[in-house]
C-alpha cells in the first residue's frame, strides 16, 4: 500500500514537472507573445495541479494537505489573471498576433508591429 502511494504520488509529481517542462519548451520555441503566454499559463496551472495533487497523495491527510490546497488556489487564481493582464496589455499596446501559416522570414523580428512599445525605458 505504501509502495503504491509512493509510486502514484511520485508519478503525478513527475508528470506535472514534465508538463511544465513542455510548457517551457513552448515558451522558448513559439513565434509570438500570445502563443508564448498561452503555452506558459496553461502548462503552469496544469502542471501545478498535478504536482500538488501528487504531493498531497504523498503526504497523506495532514495540515500540509490544507497548505497544498492553499498553494493550488493561489496559483489557480493568480497565474491566469496575470496571463490575461499581460495579453490584454500587449494587445492594447499594438502587438499584432501572428495569423496564418507559421514561417520565419529573414530579418523579421517575432514581436509583431509594436509601434509605441520598444524595450528600454524610453520616455513616452
Amino acid at each position, binding site marked *: 500500500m505504501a509502495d503504491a502511494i509512493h509510486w502514484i504520488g511520485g508519478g503525478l*509529481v513527475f508528470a506535472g514537472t514534465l508538463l511544465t*517542462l513542455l510548457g517551457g519548451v513552448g515558451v522558448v520555441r513559439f513565434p509570438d507573445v500570445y502563443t508564448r503566454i498561452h503555452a506558459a499559463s496553461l502548462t503552469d496551472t496544469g502542471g501545478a495541479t498535478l504536482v500538488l495533487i501528487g504531493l498531497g497523495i504523498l503526504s497523506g491527510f495532514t495540515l500540509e494537505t490544507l497548505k*497544498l490546497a492553499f498553494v493550488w488556489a493561489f496559483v489557480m487564481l493568480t497565474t491566469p489573471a496575470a496571463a490575461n*493582464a499581460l495579453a490584454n496589455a500587449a494587445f492594447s499596446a499594438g*502587438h499584432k498576433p501572428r495569423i496564418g501559416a507559421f514561417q520565419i522570414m529573414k530579418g523579421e523580428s517575432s514581436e509583431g508591429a509594436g509601434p509605441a512599445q520598444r*524595450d528600454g525605458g524610453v520616455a513616452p
Partner: protein
Amino acid sequence: MLLAAGVAGLVVAMGLMIWRAIAGPSPYDRMLAGNSFGTKTVLLIAVIGYLFGRPAFLDIAIAYALINFVTTIALMKFVRYRTLAQPLCSPHDTEAKDG
C-alpha cells in the same frame, strides 16, 4: 527518486524561462517569462520540502505565489501605462470615454 527527477525537470524549465527573459524580444515576453519562473519556483519549493523531509516550507510557496502576482502587475503597469499611481480602467470608465 521520482521527486528528484521532478526537481531536475523544474530546474531545467526555470533555465528555459531565464533564456526567454534574457532574449526578449518584447518586454511582454520578459514579463511572461518572469511570471512563469515564479510559478515554477512555487512548485520547486513545494517539491523540495518533501524531498528534504521538511514540508513546513509550504508557507514560503504561498508567499511566492502572492508576491509573484503583484510583481507582474507592477511590471505590466510600468511597461504599458508608464505609471504606478493611476488606477487600471474598469469597463465603465472606458465606456464613458467612448460615448
